[in-house]
Every structure is written in structure tokens, then in C-alpha cells.
């Protein structure tokens, strides 16, 4: 079956000698094991930061927005900066799982689960800021168009702030169901491995009773594809609409038509940087280096480099258009950004976002894990400054010079920001200990085509049939026991080492033409046609998947040398061949040697 074929030039996505069962074990390990010291330390730090943030939020709500550093000139500062920053980070997850799915990028499979988790957790952080900023968050439901006691008082659908409400809630909820639907088979895998009753109960609940029928999988794949198709324009719309919050206003520096694409590129840029930060740590802590490989890091670096360059183009375009527009207020806004009192923030942004990703042109640097981690942190910082620059430097010097001022955050501003970082990591750490962090069902579908071991076997001309089977689970149990007893990786159950039929077959293959076979051989050759060394030249039969050097040798002994001969084989010839060589029965048929040979003739 050619379904597992992949061009040899592609580098393997799953390293090591993995069977299907190994994938389950590797993905379930962080869930089933104990948390280590490092996890508890980071968890405690995140918890403290989170609690500090909660304290600052309570102080803000009970006392008022006056506890922040805002003033009458700068009415938006850290709150909206943080909001846009978190929403931006939330873009990589859906981009990886949806856009890369549409483009059939298999490398997404190792990282999409965690990237989507990151999306959901960061959009939660983002959503906090507008709600706190309302001042009276218990009235937050007023943004929803519901009939109310004030007569016909509706929300304003002309306002981009309301579009934002719809965009972000749609994005959060659709990302959540996309993520959860993908999780069902993986929760089911953990459920069926679970030994402790409590664990079994929890994962039964989470997996919604996933059963894995052929029809379920058919629907599952269709649903994933359609959700990807819906999520792709959705993810682009969300940051577009966030940028409308600024672009539809008449503030110099905000009133720019380039904002939507520029914000989307920036969002992907910062989102990938955050995915990079998280996964470089996670692959180490959870021992997932075989799945999240250096190749994955390299590819993400390339995305960071490209989107960083797009963002750089946008910065320069902004400057050019400000000059070209001839509007002096617009010109001043940008001149002030680059040379005014906030020039340090502007140049920090330029250095982090435009200059630093350019290092990724060098293969040595983009395949270096330490360097990638460093750059990902730099980009995260740079993208925070981008939003700060757009918001604060456009506001702090308005049309009336007497109201020009600077912004300085109070400890409450800083505390809420630190608190959301703590909350984010708290959620991510809990996720990493309780959720299957890799989409294991999807990885199993590409194991034979993109796994290192299978690529090697295929190149050696060997069949991949039954190669992903694990001895620990496939060893035939001594009695026909109730299957529910033999759960998981209990070593006492799986110890029966069965020498695979394949091995027996390969040793038998070497001496096929015993006397009793001669007659069968002749009748087979009659049907396939004899090979005449004078007029014909032998083909390299190893090019047929499933024929290795040994099998070729034994075929040659029988008298089969050419693709032409192989292509004439049908069911009865396969059976004859099986009885002559004593090889693994049915293998030739399963690999469809005749069909492959036909293709090779053409």
C-alpha cells in the first residue's frame, strides 16, 4: 500500500525506534507519572504571581481605575497593551492547527495540541483586561445585545469595540471546541490505560465516551477539516478587528489602513515566539525530544523570521506613508515615536522585532536550541513594546501641547500584568501534567510515513507491514483471557516474547527451491513467463516495496527477474509463491507487488 509513502528527501518527524505503543506510552508518561521538583518550583512561582495579580485586580475593582497610572491624556496604556499582546500570542495555536492542516504540513502534529492550549490560555488572559478596564466588571454583560430594563437600549453594532466582543468570544469558543474534539481520542487512550479508578473516571468523563469506530473517525477527520477551514479566516479576522479598535479612530498614529495585515503578521510572529518558548522547555521536561525535534524548532524559527520581516516592512511602510501623506500631525506622531521621549521603547521594539529574527537566516543559529529560546524571549519582549509604542506614544502628545504628559505604571498596573503571566503559566503547567500534550492519534497516522525507523526500513526496501507492532502488546496471551484484564503496560502480561512470523519467514526464504517445490515453481513460471538472459535484462526488484535483498534473491532463484513478470501476478500466483518460498503469507498481496511493478514499468 503506497499510503505510507513519503519522499525520502523529507527529514523524519518522529525520531527513534517507535512502535505505535511507544507513542501511547511516551504521551501518557507525563500524565501517569509524578511531578518533579522543577515542576513544583515553577508552579509555586506562578501561583504567587497569580495571587499577586488577583490582589491587584481586587484592589482595582474595589478602589477604582484611579489606582492605575492612567491620566487624562493617556487613557489607554498597560491594560490595552497587555490585552493586545495576549490576543496576539493567542494566534499561533489556531494558525498551527488550522492553517498548517489546510496546507497538509505534517510537522504541525507534534506541536498543535500545546499551541492550541497556549491559544486558549492566552485569550483568557486577554479577555480579563477589557473586563477589568470597564471598572464595574459585574456589568460586563451589558456588552451583549440582550433585551433589558432600560427600554430599547441596545449595544452599538457600528463600534469596533463591540465587534471585538463578538470576534474574541467566537475565537475563544471555536478554538476550545477544536482543541477538545482533537483531544477526545487521546483522552480515551489515557482512559483505557488508567489503572486507578479515580483516574479512569476522570478521563472517561473528559473523553465523552470516545469509542473510535470507523464512522467516528470518518466524521472526526471531516469535522477537523471543516473546523480548520472555518478557523483560518476566523483567526485572521480576530486581530484584524482588534486593529480596527485603533484604525477606525482619528488619532494620528492609529488611523492607518495597514493595521489589519500588520497586526495579523505581528500576532503570528509573537504567537510563534511564545510557542517556541514553551515547547523548548516542555520537550525537555516531558522527554518529548523524539517528537518535537530540532526540525520543528527550525521550522518555527523560519516562520518567526518571515513574519518578523513582514512586521519590519510594516514599520517602514508606516513611516513612509506618514511622510507621504503630508499630514503634519501624522508626521509628528511618527517622528515623536522615533526621536521623542519614548524613543527608547521604539528602538527596543525595532531591535527585538526587526533585527533579532534576521539571525535565523543562518542555519547554525536556527537549529541551535539555546539561541532559539533566547530569540523567542526577545521577540516576546519586542512585541509587548510594539503595542506599548502604538498605544502610549500616539496618545501622550495629543493636539493640545498643554496636556502633553508621560505615562508611568503603578504597582497595580505591573501587578496585574505579572498576575496574568502567572495565571497563564499556572494553566499551562496544569495542562502539561493532565492532558496528552501531543496529538498521539494523529502522530500514529504519520508514524510509518515520517518516522525515522520506517523511513530507513523503506529505503532498505523492506515491507512496513507489522513493523509498528509492539512485542509488549502483540505477544499472544497464553489463554483467551478477557481483554479488559490485560490493560496497559503491565509487564507480566506482555512478557510472552513471540518470535514474529516474519523472522521465521526470512530464514526460510533463503533455501526455497527444494525438490518438492520444483513442480510448483515450473507452473508458476509458466504463468509469469520465463526470463531470457540473452534478450532481457533483470530489473532491480528491490524497488518494489516489500521486496528486500533476501526476497529478491529467492525470487531470482525461482526465475523471476523483471517487473514484467511480477506485474502478471494475481491471487493464485501469490498463493503459489507463498507456498514455494514459505514466506510470510499474504505479504505480496498486501503490498500489491503486481500493482507496484506495473507502475515501475511505466
Amino acid at each position, binding site marked *: *500500500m503506497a*499510503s505510507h509513502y513519503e519522499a525520502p528527501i523529507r527529514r523524519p518527524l518522529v525520531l527513534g525506534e517507535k512502535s*505505535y*505503543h511507544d507513542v501511547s506510552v511516551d504521551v501518557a508518561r507525563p500524565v501517569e507519572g509524578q511531578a518533579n521538583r522543577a515542576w513544583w518550583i515553577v508552579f509555586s512561582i506562578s501561583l504567587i504571581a497569580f495571587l499577586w495579580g488577583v490582589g491587584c485586580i481586587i484592589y482595582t475593582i474595589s478602589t477604582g481605575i484611579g489606582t492605575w497610572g492612567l491620566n487624562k491624556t493617556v487613557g489607554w496604556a498597560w491594560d490595552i497593551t497587555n490585552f493586545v499582546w495576549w490576543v496576539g500570542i493567542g494566534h499561533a495555536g489556531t494558525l498551527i492547527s488550522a492553517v498548517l492542516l489546510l496546507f497538509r504540513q505534517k510537522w504541525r502534529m507534534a506541536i498543535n495540541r500545546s499551541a492550541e492550549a497556549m491559544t486558549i490560555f492566552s485569550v483568557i488572559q486577554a479577555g480579563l483586561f477589557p473586563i477589568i478596564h470597564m471598572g464595574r466588571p459585574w456589568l460586563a454583560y451589558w456588552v451583549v445585545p440582550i433585551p433589558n430594563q432600560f427600554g*430599547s437600549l*441596545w*449595544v*452599538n*453594532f*457600528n*463600534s*469596533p469595540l463591540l*465587534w471585538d466582543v*463578538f*470576534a474574541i468570544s*467566537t475565537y475563544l*469558543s*471555536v478554538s476550545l471546541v*477544536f482543541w477538545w*474534539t482533537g483531544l477526545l*481520542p487521546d483522552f*480515551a*487512550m489515557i*482512559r*483505557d490505560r488508567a489503572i486507578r479508578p479515580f483516574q479512569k473516571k476522570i478521563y*472517561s*468523563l473528559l473523553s465523552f*465516551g470516545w*469509542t*473510535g*469506530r*470507523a*464512522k*467516528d*473517525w*470518518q*466524521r*472526526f*477527520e471531516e*469535522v477537523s477539516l*471543516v*473546523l480548520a477551514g*472555518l*478557523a483560518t479566516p476566523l483567526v485572521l*479576522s480576530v486581530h484584524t478587528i482588534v486593529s480596527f479598535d485603533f484604525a477606525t479612530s482619528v488619532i494620528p498614529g492609529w488611523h492607518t489602513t495597514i493595521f489589519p495585515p500588520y497586526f495579523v503578521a505581528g500576532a503570528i510572529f509573537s504567537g510563534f515566539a511564545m510557542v517556541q518558548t514553551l515547547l523548548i522547555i516542555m520537550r525537555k521536561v516531558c522527554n518529548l525530544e523524539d517528537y518535537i525535534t530540532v526540525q520543528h524548532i527550525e521550522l518555527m524559527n523560519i516562520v518567526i523570521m518571515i513574519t518578523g520581516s513582514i512586521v519590519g516592512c510594516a514599520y517602514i511602510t508606516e513611516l513612509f506613508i506618514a511622510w507621504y501623506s503630508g499630514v503634519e500631525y501624522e508626521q509628528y506622531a511618527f517622528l515623536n515615536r522615533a526621536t521623542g521621549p519614548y524613543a527608547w521603547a521604539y528602538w527596543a521594539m525595532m531591535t527585538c522585532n526587526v533585527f533579532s529574527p534576521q539571525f535565523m537566516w543562518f542555519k547554525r543559529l536556527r537549529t541551535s536550541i539555546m539561541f532559539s529560546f533566547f530569540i523567542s524571549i526577545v521577540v516576546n519582549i519586542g512585541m509587548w513594546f510594539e503595542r506599548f509604542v502604538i498605544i502610549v506614544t500616539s496618545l501622550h502628545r495629543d493636539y493640545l501641547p498643554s496636556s502633553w504628559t508621560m505615562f508611568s505604571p503603578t504597582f497595580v498596573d505591573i501587578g496585574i500584568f505579572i498576575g496574568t503571566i502567572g495565571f497563564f503559566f499556572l494553566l499551562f503547567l496544569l495542562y502539561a501534567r493532565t492532558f496528552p500534550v501531543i496529538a498521539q*492519534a*494523529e502522530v*500514529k*497516522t504519520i508514524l510509518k510515513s515520517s518516522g525515522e525507523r520506517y523511513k530507513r526500513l523503506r529505503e532498505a526496501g523492506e515491507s512496513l*507491514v*507489522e*513493523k*509498528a*507492532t*509492539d512485542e509488549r502488546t*502483540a505477544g*499472544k496471551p497464553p489463554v483467551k483471557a478477557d*481483554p*479488559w484484564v*490485560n490493560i496497559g503496560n503491565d509487564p507480566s502480561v506482555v512478557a510472552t516474547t513471540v518470535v514474529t512470523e516474519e523472522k521465521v519467514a526470512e530464514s526460510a526464504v533463503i533455501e526455497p527451491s527444494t525438490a518438492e517445490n520444483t513442480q510448483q515453481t515450473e507452473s508458476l513460471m509458466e504463468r509469469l513467463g520465463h526470463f531470457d538472459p540473452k534478450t532481457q535484462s533483470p530489473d532491480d526488484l528491490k524497488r518494489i516495496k516489500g521486496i528486500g535483498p533476501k526476497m529478491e534473491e529467492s525470487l531470482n532463484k525461482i526465475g523471476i527477474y523483471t517487473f514484467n513478470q511480477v506485474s502478471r501476478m494475481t491471487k493464485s500466483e501469490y498463493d503459489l509463491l507463498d507456498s514455494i518460498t514459505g514466506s510470510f503469507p499474504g505479504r505480496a498481496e498486501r503490498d500489491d507487488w503486481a500493482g507496484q511493478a506495473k507502475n515501475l514499468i511505466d
Partner: protein
Amino acid sequence: MDTVKVVHAVYTDDEVLMAAVKKVREERHHIEEIYTPFPVHGLDKAMGLAPTRIAITSFLYGCLGLAVAITMMNYIMIDDWPQDIGGKPSFSYLENMPAFVPIMFELTVFMAAHLMVITFYLRSKMWPFKKAENPDPRTTDDHFLMEVATRGNEQAVEDLLSSTGAIEVNIVEKEAH
């Protein structure tokens, strides 16, 4: 409760399973169900499953979402209480429509995505507290299980399945539908 006898054949390889499915279908036995740990591409076609129509439902739900958005905003912004907001036209839906495009889009996506997923969950019988129905826990790990109806012909089906490379073939009593 009436019971029927079915044969459960357990495989450890997707390619062996595919070949077995073809063989069982050639021998004109009825495959009741196949449980797999991951989507095996082409299995639905080999089994003769009808293509899923869930994408069509999604399209219809999307249309519904668009209709809801248009109706809602026409009622709220034009019919019920038109207001002069920044001089934007407020007495004609069509003239005010460009400002509504973002919401129309979001609601279309919202309904298309959520209602399709709900349809999927219900059609495949999945919801919280639903008990899983896979007959063998190994089918979520690395085993593939094919359930074949016997129709009183147990021995023949068992022999056939044993010859297809199954590692286990069990005859199981199952509640009749």
C-alpha cells in the same frame, strides 16, 4: 435480551487490517464495526461506509448564522431604535451594512462551527458521562478490532479471520439491536 454471536478479530497493523477488510468483503461477510486507535486512511471506503454529510450540515448552520446576524442587527439597529451614531446611515439596512460585516462573519463562523461539532458529538454518541463502547481497551492504543457478523456461520467466519493475520479471534455474544 436477545443476543447475537459476532466474531472479534484483533489486528496489530493497519495494513494487515486493510487487507483483511478487503478479504472479508470479498467473501461477502458483513463487517459490523471496526475500532481503530487512529484514523486509517481509506478504511471507510474499503468497508463501504457512505461518505459523511457533516460538512453539508456545517454549511447549512453557517447560513443560519448569517441569517440570524442579519435579522438581529436589522431589528436592533434599524427597526427598533435607529440612532445617529457618528452620522452613519441608520434608516437603511443596506447602507449601514458595511459596519455589520464583521458581526455577520463572526456569527456565521460561530454557528457553523459549534452546531457542526454538536451534531458530530450527538451522531457519534459522545457527551459527558457517556460510557465508551469499544469492546477492547487496546483499541485506543495500538490494536485494531474488526467485528464481523456470524449469521449462524461461526466456524467459517472464524477460520476466515484467522487466515487474515489476526492475532486473536474471539466469538462474542452481543446484545441484538
